[in-house]
């Protein structure tokens, strides 16, 4: 048993007439030997940490160790509270993703989802949207299983490590996971959830991992916000019945293939892209100098 492709996952859910999350939870119970309630309790702990990180990032003035990022989520939240933002729902999603990413950069507690560098995407998308739909704790908890099930397939068929696949593997995967979970939260079908994952991942295909000075800050924090907004875009399309011409599993394989084709300079080595710009290099030199003086 088990599922090793998005196609199998959708098929299993359709066959039983259940949500993707029910299949994922059932499989986790079967493979871990834990009781369903124990597995749900573990996920509930993840949800609690996500919620606390989001609250903290939105309300406190975060600041990273290097001083490069922080405080953006609070600024955006204040603007949204003053009804000055361009959108309401999307502004909340962007602020949520920034919040958790900024907490991560400031050495706060987060859930790697699928990685620490992309930890802002899932809570950024799901927490504000669950509030908007008023779906309750149970549905929100279950949507995390959908995200994790899709993420498990991406991990097995491709990679979620920036060093192996670039940022498309981290923020791209997180965006696909969040899109699938959001479709389920909004009452969409398993097939629509899978399509949302495919669309979200496609839109970020080829995204490089080029962190300035090698830190999980620039451009990672803002890319989490971009990946979160992209998840909403993909879910909107999928819920309207718009489908990806390339099937979900093939999109995942394409991501793996693009990851292999990317040169090492664009896979977390801080040797290309934004890290190699004059400003990126200058920041790197300044931070290294700071480390030498203090260290």
């Amino acid at each position, binding site marked *: 048993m088990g599922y090793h492709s998005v196609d199998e996952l959708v098929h299993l859910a359709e066959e039983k007439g259940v949500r993707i999350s029910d299949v994922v939870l059932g499989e986790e119970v079967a493979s*871990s030997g834990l009781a369903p309630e124990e597995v749900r309790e573990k996920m509930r702990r*993840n949800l609690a940490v996500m919620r606390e990180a989001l609250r903290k990032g939105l309300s406190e003035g975060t600041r990273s*160790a290097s001083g490069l990022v922080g405080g953006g989520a609070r600024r955006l939240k204040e603007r949204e509270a003053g009804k000055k933002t361009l959108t309401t729902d999307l502004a909340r999603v962007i602020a949520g993703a920034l919040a958790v990413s900024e907490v*991560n950069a400031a050495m706060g507690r987060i859930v*790697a989802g699928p990685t620490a560098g992309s930890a802002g995407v899932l809570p950024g998308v799901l927490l504000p949207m669950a509030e908007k739909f008023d779906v309750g704790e149970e549905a929100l908890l279950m949507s995390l299983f959908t995200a994790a099930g899709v*993420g498990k397939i991406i991990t097995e068929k491709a990679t979620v*490590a920036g060093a192996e696949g670039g940022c498309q593997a981290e923020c791209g995967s997180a965006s696909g996971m969040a899109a699938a979970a959001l479709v389920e939260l909004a009452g969409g079908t398993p097939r629509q959830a899978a399509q949302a994952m495919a669309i979200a991942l496609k839109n970020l295909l080829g995204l490089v991992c080029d962190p300035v000075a090698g830190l999980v800050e620039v451009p990672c924090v803002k890319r989490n916000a971009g990946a979160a907004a992209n998840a909403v875009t993909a879910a909107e399309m999928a819920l309207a019945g718009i489908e990806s011409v390339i099937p979900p599993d093939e999109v995942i394989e394409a991501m793996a293939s693009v990851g292999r084709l990317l040169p090492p300079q664009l896979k977390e080595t801080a040797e290309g892209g934004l890290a190699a710009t004059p400003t990126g290099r200058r920041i790197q030199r300044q931070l290294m100098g700071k*480390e030498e003086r203090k*260290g």
Partner: protein
Amino acid sequence: MTGVFDVLGPIMIGPSSSHTAGAVRIGRVARAILGDRVSRARILLHGSFAETYRGHGTDRALVAGLMGYATDDEKIREALEAAVREGLAVSFERADLGPVHPNTALLLLTSPSGRRVEVMGSSVGGGSVVITRINGFAVELTGEYNTLLTIHQDRKGVIAAVTAILAEADINIAFMRVSRQERGATALMLIEVDQPVAVWVLEQIRALGAVEQAMMIEPQ
């Protein structure tokens, strides 16, 4: 097989699973190898650890691990200040440790009673670590299993005697590795076991003439 909590998790202190969470684990395993509280630590940082340690909080994370903090403890951020309060003297240096993994640290630790140990460890991704050297001996220790460590004279029959004691105590060996610096001198043995080794079993091993040290390293 990948489980859902490998994808959504672990719960950790940011910003990086390799440079922060992994560094905490290197510190924790090194403390377990010392087998005591750490009163002095000289820490040499190599490669990416040396280049980005302050931005990733690798220094704080290593010290947090030396004080026994968990990888999701929010106190990690203030670990350097806590170390000062607890009388743990720490120094950091950037160093070239040779052809090793880019995320590597060498920790020279001293306990309050003057016991000393040198531990080299690498953070190999996703928060997983490998200890590659203990007191100059090449080892391979993940800190994920109960591990028996012995330092003994390199002569025939010692390994057989140790494993016989384990078998007698109904302890199964999962993995083992013996390392020595030169023939007939001192050897170091790491035995990963399925069950923890009780103190009375350790005492039996220590009572073997050729065994200089035997200790249990619990999973970190």
